[in-house]
């Protein structure tokens, strides 16, 4: 736990209170146990030759400790509830994102009042710091769980219902998130990043991200764009501003500007993108993307096309 948000800091504080109490209780138990074992009680002939005053006293001590336990437990319940209240406090003016879980990646919708300002991206969530962010969580298939330990606790994405979680990042940085509910074969490779940016930087990114893909920068990229459509990529992936409008896989409009590939499995660079295109099943076995029968020159063209989708 390395808190960089209001919520994760609150949780850490609650945790520390519990940890201290737990440590004291455990040490006390072990000390009493050790002391009891090291004592040399008066030797007694028979197991049933008990000393009634001692038995009474022991009973009283046990009950006293029981009452102490009740008090500790109630106090901890109050501490816990206070922590819960602040962690789950809601701010109506929060920036709203809608995240949909898929086996095994994250679809991220930035909602705005007017449709032309809403856009979709995947596996990478950019947020402004010092501003509450509300994340609405849904699932397209099985149950997943949204978890960025540095920002706040987790919340499940449950089929057939919408959950919500809020957090406010305090420091700019890249925070790793990972699916925390077992969701099938590649549960282990269902990560994402949250990139917290200063507010004006976030605004610039949002404006850029909202734009459609630019036209290809050179002939090779143009060839890539055509192949992207002709070889079936576009059946599953969307590149806004082109004819590619598939809904099954992640939106690739600005893929070239992302930091990771395959839902946080690898850092995104020229080599990993190439490896992924050549054989996605090798890197993340069982994912929905098939190995496409591409000639090497076709591969190079598509690779180039995707890289320049900044």
């Amino acid at each position, binding site marked *: 736990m390395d808190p960089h948000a209001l919520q994760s800091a609150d949780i850490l504080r609650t945790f520390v209170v519990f940890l201290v109490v737990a440590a004291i209780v455990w040490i006390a138990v072990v000390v009493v146990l050790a002391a009891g074992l090291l004592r040399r009680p008066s030797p007694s002939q028979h*197991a049933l030759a008990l000393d009634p005053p001692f038995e009474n006293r022991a009973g009283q001590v046990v009950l006293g400790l029981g009452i102490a336990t009740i008090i500790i437990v109630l106090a901890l319940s109050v501490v816990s509830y206070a922590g819960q209240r602040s962690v789950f406090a809601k701010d109506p003016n929060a920036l709203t994102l809608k995240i949909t879980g898929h086996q095994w990646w994250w679809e991220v919708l930035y909602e705005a009042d007017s449709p032309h300002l809403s856009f979709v991206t995947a596996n990478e969530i950019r947020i402004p710091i010092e501003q509450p962010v509300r994340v609405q969580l849904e699932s397209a298939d099985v149950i997943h769980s949204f978890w960025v330990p540095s920002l706040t606790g987790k919340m499940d994405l449950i089929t057939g219902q919408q959950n919500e979680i809020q957090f406010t990042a305090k420091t700019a940085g890249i925070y790793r998130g990972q699916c925390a509910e077992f969701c099938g074969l590649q549960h282990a490779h269902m990560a994402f990043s949250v990139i917290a940016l200063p507010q004006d930087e976030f605004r610039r990114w949002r404006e850029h991200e909202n734009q459609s893909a630019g036209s290809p920068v050179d002939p090779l990229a143009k060839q890539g764009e055509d192949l992207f459509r002709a070889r079936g990529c576009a059946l599953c992936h969307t590149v806004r501003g082109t004819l590619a409008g598939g809904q099954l896989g992640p939106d690739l409009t600005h893929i070239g500007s992302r930091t990771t590939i395959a839902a946080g499995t690898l850092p995104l660079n020229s080599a990993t993108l190439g490896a992924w295109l050549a054989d996605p099943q090798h890197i993340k076995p069982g994912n929905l993307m098939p190995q496409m029968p591409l000639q090497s020159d076709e591969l190079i063209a598509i690779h180039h096309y995707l890289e320049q989708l900044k």
Partner: protein
Amino acid sequence: MTLVTQHKELRDDVLDGLQLSTRLDRIWRTPSGLIGALTSVDHKVIGRRYILTAFVFLFLGGALALLMRVQLAGAEKHVLSADLYNQVFTMHGSTMMFLFAVPVMEAFAVYLVPLMVGTRNIAFPRLNAFSYWMFLFGGCFLWISFIFNVGPDVGWFAYVPLSNLQFTPSKRADVWAQMITFTEVAALAVAVEIVVTVFKLRAPGMTLDRIPIFVWSMLVTSFLVMFAMPSIMIASTSLILDRLVNTHFFDPAAGGHVLLWQHLFWFFGHPEVYIIFLPATGMASMILATFARRPVIGYPVIVLSLIATGFLSFGLWVHHMFVTGLPQLGAALFTANSMLIAVPSGLQIFCWLATLWDGRPVYRTPLLFVLGFIVVFVIGGLSGVMVASVPIDTQVHDTYFVVAHFHYVLIGGAVFPLIGAVYYWFPKISGRMLSERLGRWNFWLAFVGFNVAFFPMHFLGLMGMPRRVYTYIPDMGWDRLNLLSSCGAALFAVSFILLIANVVVSARRGALAGDNPWDASTLEWATTSPPPSYNFDRIPAVDHRDPLWSDTESIRVVAGLSAERREVLLTSLAEADPQVREASPEPSIWPLLTALATTVFFIGSIFTPWAVLWGTPPMAVALIGWFWPTGSREDEE
């Protein structure tokens, strides 16, 4: 009035010594040979099988755990594929929970409870045989499926929709769900037997406040089983129906609800933890009294704690669902209730500490395991208080912190006392002592290995490692702690190898135990080791909570049971006053045949609904055979 020439029945008050024991043995013993083995209804024979089978599943489940630890010892290792790993962790959890932890506790109860309450056999002995066969067949069904690559891979709580037909089209989820049905049938049967045995078969004079604590713990556990397990059977059956005939219990697209599964599962799943833990505390109390050389302080406190834990355990299940978006205030109430369970658990621990404080401890292996249990379990209990808190749980839920927590509770809280119990009762069961030297090695390796394996997992969880991942990427910094944990697991495994070696060697060459090697106080030590088929020459009469300590020369008995046919003495519920002499069933092949018919029915019905139709007649035939009236003599007052 008509004159009836009546055969005067021979009873155990007119016979004595060898004459009595020979006669009793002739009517109670299990016939030799294969037929005898298959028809036995002796609770000791079945209890022994049950214990052994459960331990086989422990070792199988443990082997899977080692495979996982090898895979996770470093980042991006490829010892297991993702597919195999997911089967392995599901099999590990399912085996440990359903084929080891619950059955092994019930197995010890099947063996020990009739001896501890001083009767000749368990209540409903044929049901007992049936229960064992169902457990065995269910366990084999799961493991054979796994060998044929149809092992379940949806986690031991098989959340929908992942386990729905759409996302698990193979038979893997059906195998899991039907294995549940098998083991729950077995567990429910034993629960009924234990309750009736404790309520009606106690030796005369064993009033409620003289019942040994282990028997109390099994009584409470049996009630938990009866109230908790129907919930999971409804869940698993609904899942199979969803998958087989398209009912829509858990299909949100058709109006079903996926959270319903979690409620049903955890309404069972949380009491399940206490179904495993309470018997272990009962064992700990028994061992502690014997080796502290005095009765446990606070008998009523401990008994009431067991009962309170039983009740509270049904009000905690939502703490497994804190991150499913339930209303906040409701969740907070479950936090308070979950933490409250620390009170009865704490009271038990305080009683044990007080007992050790005043006692004169004799450091034999069983006591070492109980001391280790106290040290380790308290850590698990306290981390349980942590995860009961909603804000903390949102961070640590489904991480290795929780993995560490429940292994501290289940291994620390149940397996440690259980191994202590093996050392403690092995002499009674086999007639021979386990080696004390190997026992000490066993304990220290287990204690160190366990902590090295599981303590680092707390940190891994806090560092963000989720559970159920088949691998992790290299730059997370999780490698070293995982490697450490894997080393600990290896050490822990060695301790179990020592246990096996000790049992195998000592069963043949161990020192002879005698009736009561530990000078313990409860009735199971009043008979020979191993006990005769009829348990006691005559039924003991109890006038003290620690009968063997209160009257060291000879134990009082009651006489009057038949020496010609199987008979047990029924006593009243509270005061254990003698009421009726009741016939006890003879060996029978029908429980086995019924179990076979049920097995065919259960396995067939995951493939076709027709199996329900064609599977019923054989079961009906088997049950008719089982209950065919044999004209046994009327019960006598």
